[in-house]
């Protein structure tokens, strides 16, 4: 059995910097001093594990959390969680949250003048299966305005939070929808220079998971850092 000795460094251009002034809130929240490179130790190569005690199957259907059906277009969101070596990441917790069909979150800080949907909370979670697959049923989220710049609108998106096998594989990201005209104006989507990396945040329409006469399918695969199989110097300062 191979022991994980470390996780790969990000490929240049594929991960954002902390300071990205086009996204205005980064200016007062980004560290100003250089990060210290941390050798990956047992503390970073291990991480929390979750199980079926933590989630129930109904947590993955966001359309069945209230007495009535939420408004909007029902969709199926599926994908695989893999690592950079192409290996499935099984039994890992996937948490999602999103706006309702009108582009409104049921949150005290969301003052957007669009209706709250009493039948939609917008939160879901599941565990990936043995092949790294996950599946949610939800509704297509609406676009909504924000105050980053004049006439700023967020493209439709779903937030994803994943753990993977280790502290070092933790990631929060966002899934977008194909053909959204707002993407090319969105500072968050544009936060990395690598265009291919950005496009990987956009889900693809998927006939295979589309349910006839019920819901369109969208596919979004998520790749976590992969273990570095070649031995690396774990003490960069020495």
């Amino acid at each position, binding site marked *: 059995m191979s022991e994980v000795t470390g996780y790969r460094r990000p490929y240049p251009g594929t991960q954002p910097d902390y300071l990205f002034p086009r996204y205005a809130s980064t200016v007062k929240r980004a560290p100003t001093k250089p990060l210290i490179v*941390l050798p990956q130790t047992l503390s970073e190569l291990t991480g929390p594990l979750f199980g079926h005690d933590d989630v129930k199957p109904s947590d993955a259907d966001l359309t069945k959390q209230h007495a009535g059906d939420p408004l909007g277009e029902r969709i199926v969101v599926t994908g695989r969680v893999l690592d950079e070596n192409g290996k499935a990441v099984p039994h890992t917790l996937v948490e999602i949250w999103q706006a309702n069909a009108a582009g409104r979150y049921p949150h005290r800080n969301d003052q957007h003048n669009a209706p709250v949907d009493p039948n939609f909370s917008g939160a879901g979670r599941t565990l990936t299966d043995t092949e790294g697959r996950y599946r949610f049923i939800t509704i297509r989220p609406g676009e909504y305005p924000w105050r980053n710049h004049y006439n700023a609108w967020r493209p439709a998106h779903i937030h994803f939070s994943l753990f993977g096998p280790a502290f070092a594989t933790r990631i929060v990201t966002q899934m977008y929808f194909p053909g959204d005209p707002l993407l090319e104006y969105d500072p968050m989507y544009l936060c990395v220079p690598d265009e291919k990396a950005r496009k990987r945040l956009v889900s693809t329409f998927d006939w295979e998971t589309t349910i006839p006469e019920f819901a369109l399918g969208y596919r979004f695969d998520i790749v*976590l850092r992969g273990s570095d199989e070649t031995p690396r110097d774990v003490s960069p300062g020495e």
Partner: protein
Amino acid sequence: MSLYATTSQTVGPYLHIGLTWLIRENLVGPGVTGEPVTIQGRVVDGDGKPVGDALVEIWQANAHGKYAHPDDKQAKPLEPGFKGWGRAATDDNGVFRFTTIKPGRVPGPGGKLQAPHIAVTVFMRGQLKHLVSRIYFPDDPANAEDPVLKFVPAERRGTLIAKKTGAKGALEWNVMLQGAEETVFFDC
């Protein structure tokens, strides 16, 4: 490498909707041994204002220095009441708190033992990727020989070491995003 890791994106301002179902501020279950500690802190932005929409997660070994994870192959006891993971959201004053135990020492680079520490991730609107830091413990002689603290300039190490606040086991550790007291953040 055949694939590239997915690009990180911010949790945004409405993170509570998706993430607070699993708030875990008390890590200590029945039968857990070790020195009890409470860690309270504030998250503060570059204007000195509290960050009321941050999420702090912690990960630590048990009092024996063993992680509840299959890749920890050390011959040390696990305790069923201690998983070692916590999650807290900040309140309007930027305050978060955890109740836990001081972890034991775990191996670091070159097999040298690390000083007791807690690994920390911080998420918030205005950060396109999460921050990584560590909490160390005050007055622990092992801090002087810790192989990770060694990488940190001496004048900044204090930002990683929690402070005693009076009551037994009460500690304070803040996340200062910017400024003279800016917390040390890691690239791991």
